């Protein structure tokens, strides 16, 4: 560029200072012609360096510029030569505060320094009339409706060289005391310190607890339209979302072994509910993973959580989970996925009775209530776009007598990695009838057709095992 300016300047000076004789005019003409050629040569070289020829793509499917041949081997200067030619840093350069970003990623003009994604999960539910009256369906209060279960704005990226951050704001239709409306909440807001010693990391903030396999997933990432009944019974419809910290350690072994310890406030009212760091919810998880061969792999996890209920009684959960995937060599998607999870709950509850005969219930001690449940599913994906699966689900009620089981066959269609449709049939059979508000209806057997449409705008999380 500097050369170009010098050439142009020389041309202007030469032209401006010339007397107007015929010989000089001819001489100037030749000079201008020479300069024009030189300018053209420089322009061509600049264009070649930029390697971005101009014509726009005729079709939206071809947004890129046509291919230009890269420079031949001999003409490409080694990077080392360029770098060694750079001036040595001065003392002032060393003294100036700086960040070591330059070693990592390329940064273009106008590039955001973090990722933004919006995921939307739309659900439809079709069921019997008595189920709707009793609000006894999978999405209580939303029976026979098509509704946005969650619209989630996710912001994530590197905070600085030492930490990553995630913030997710979620809006979804919900029903509170018969009133339907939209609820806005912070589903996640946490940072992860990446550069701690001894292969540890610390995650701080509000997060989906890494308890079990599915609790860590957002609604649109679930393998089926709904969470298994055992998880919603034990952890609530939204799962275990807590405020606190998780410390992880990855063992320096030839295979993967991750240990996790968490401390949280225990706000989840379905499982805990104390909501105080004076009696925190403590969680732990160990996860390991083995590649069985080039095509198949298995992941095993054991989780535990212990906290207090709002009545200040001890409540503990334990879980085991297992996942197997078969991805034939050269396939871009798994052919077969098998997974399952079991949960065990132990909760101290007050034993009430009218010991003094005054007609008012008294606390007559405590007893331990033990409950459990499990689910398993299999998914077959013979084609990239289509998958079909089946889930079986059995659980006791954690705070009431009785149990239920459910089966859910489903079909999924995925036109691209950003769009997915699911159609499922779910049959739930309970030992007790569920009665709706104001005794308006009751249901023991529930048959539902579930439909789900999920899409992602912008950045999307990486596919994980």
């Amino acid at each position, binding site marked *: 560029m500097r050369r170009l300016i010098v050439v142009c300047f020389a041309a202007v000076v030469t032209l401006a200072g010339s007397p107007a004789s015929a010989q000089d005019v001819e001489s100037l003409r030749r000079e201008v012609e020479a300069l024009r050629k030189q300018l053209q040569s420089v322009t061509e070289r600049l264009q070649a360096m930029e390697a971005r020829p101009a014509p726009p793509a005729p079709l939206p499917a071809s947004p890129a510029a046509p291919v230009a041949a890269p420079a031949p081997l001999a003409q490409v200067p080694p990077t080392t030569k360029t770098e060694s030619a750079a001036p040595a840093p001065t003392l002032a350069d060393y003294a100036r505060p700086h960040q070591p970003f330059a070693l990592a990623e390329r940064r273009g003009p106008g590039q955001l320094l973090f990722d933004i994604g919006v995921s939307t999960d739309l659900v439809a539910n079709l069921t019997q009339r008595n189920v709707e009256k009793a609000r006894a369906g999978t999405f209580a209060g939303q029976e026979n409706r098509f509704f946005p279960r969650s619209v989630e704005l996710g912001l994530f990226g590197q905070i600085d060289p030492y930490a990553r951050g995630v913030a997710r704001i979620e809006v979804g239709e919900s029903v509170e005391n018969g009133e339907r409306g939209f609820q806005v909440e912070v589903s996640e807001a946490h940072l992860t310190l990446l550069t701690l010693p001894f*292969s540890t990391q610390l995650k701080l903030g509000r997060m989906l607890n890494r308890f079990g396999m599915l609790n860590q997933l957002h609604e649109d990432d679930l393998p089926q339209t709904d969470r298994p009944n055992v998880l919603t019974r034990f952890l609530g419809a939204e799962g275990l979302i807590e405020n606190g910290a998780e410390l992880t350690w990855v063992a320096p072994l*030839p295979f993967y072994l991750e240990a996790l310890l968490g401390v949280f406030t225990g706000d989840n009212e379905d499982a805990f509910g104390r909501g105080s760091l004076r009696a925190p919810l403590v969680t732990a998880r160990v996860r390991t993973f083995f590649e069985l061969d080039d095509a198949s792999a298995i992941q095993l996890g054991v989780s535990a959580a212990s906290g207090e209920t709002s009545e200040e009684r001890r409540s503990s959960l334990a879980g085991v989970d297992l996942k197997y995937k078969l991805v034939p060599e050269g*396939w871009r998607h798994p052919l077969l996925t098998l997974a399952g999870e079991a949960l065990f709950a132990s909760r101290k509850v007050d034993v009430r009775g009218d010991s003094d005969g005054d007609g008012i219930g008294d606390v007559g001690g405590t007893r331990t209530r033990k409950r459990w449940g499990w689910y398993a599913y299999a998914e077959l994906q013979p084609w990239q776009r289509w998958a079909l699966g089946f889930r079986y689900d059995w659980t006791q009620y954690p705070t009431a007598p009785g149990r239920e089981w459910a089966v859910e066959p489903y079909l999924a269609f995925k036109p691209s990695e950003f769009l997915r449709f699911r159609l499922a049939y779910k049959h739930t059979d309970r030992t007790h009838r569920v009665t709706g508000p104001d005794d308006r209806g009751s249901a023991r057997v529930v048959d539902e057709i579930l439909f789900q449409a999920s899409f992602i705008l912008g950045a999307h999380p990486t596919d994980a095992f």
Partner: protein
Amino acid sequence: MMRAVTLLLALALGLPVDTVAADRIRVVATINDHRLLVEAVGGDLVEVDVLARPAQNPDDLEVRPSHMAKLRRADLLVINGLDVDAWVEAVVVGANNSRVVPGAAGRVDVSRGIPVLEVPTTKVDRSMGDVHPAGNPHYYLDPGLTPITTGNILEALARVAPQHRATFETNRQAFLTRVSASLAGWQRALERFRGAPVVVYHKEWAYLLARFDIRQVDTVEDRPGIPPSPGHLVQLIRRMRDEKIKAIVVSAWNDRRTAERVATEAGARVVLLAHGAGALKGTETYFDFFDYNVKALIQALE
């Protein structure tokens, strides 16, 4: 202390303990092509592992804990960049290795300084399919770019082990000399096909074809990453017939049946190329990989 605990744990569980010599640099590359380049520059001083297996598509790899276990012990992470291996950030977060986090000295983006092809010149969105906003990331298919890629790798290795810089430079020069000689041979072999038109299944061959002056005139996918529509295939067959296009270039994970159908209708051949070193049998070394692809192209275009 930690090492002793680990060793005891591994022995107690009857597991193989770490066998990498203490003085070797542990490198993890996201794709196999960069593994070969690191080995060429690092020689015996490096121990290189790779995350995406050669037969896998690095563009949409599923992150697994086994990837994190590999990265957990790495001194250097070598990434391709240009969004093709953006999944590596999830591996980094799960690996708990502060040496390779973004901004650390122990990672290198090999695409730095590459003259990137097919950089979108118009606004892009997902209606265009799985486009790469930063440009075509498959530059490792051009052997002519090895001075840049190995230069980046050399600088990264020298950051981790500055005492071995001279050895790395010697190894690199020897490798570049060999690449230069081989490239001249490949160019001679394909000289008579300069300007020949081909159709590709997916837009991943731009660097390879541009290096040998073979024209990519159309794609089987009408939009990257999205299966082609019947209407597009009909148009493509017509164009191939009209322009007498002889070959459709595919890789192992493309839909070969669709490509075969189009080729049969258009009177062309399907040519299976290795999308990376080791992707097909007989392409395990850097030079065998390009030998194979050059021979396959010649057979298809003759």
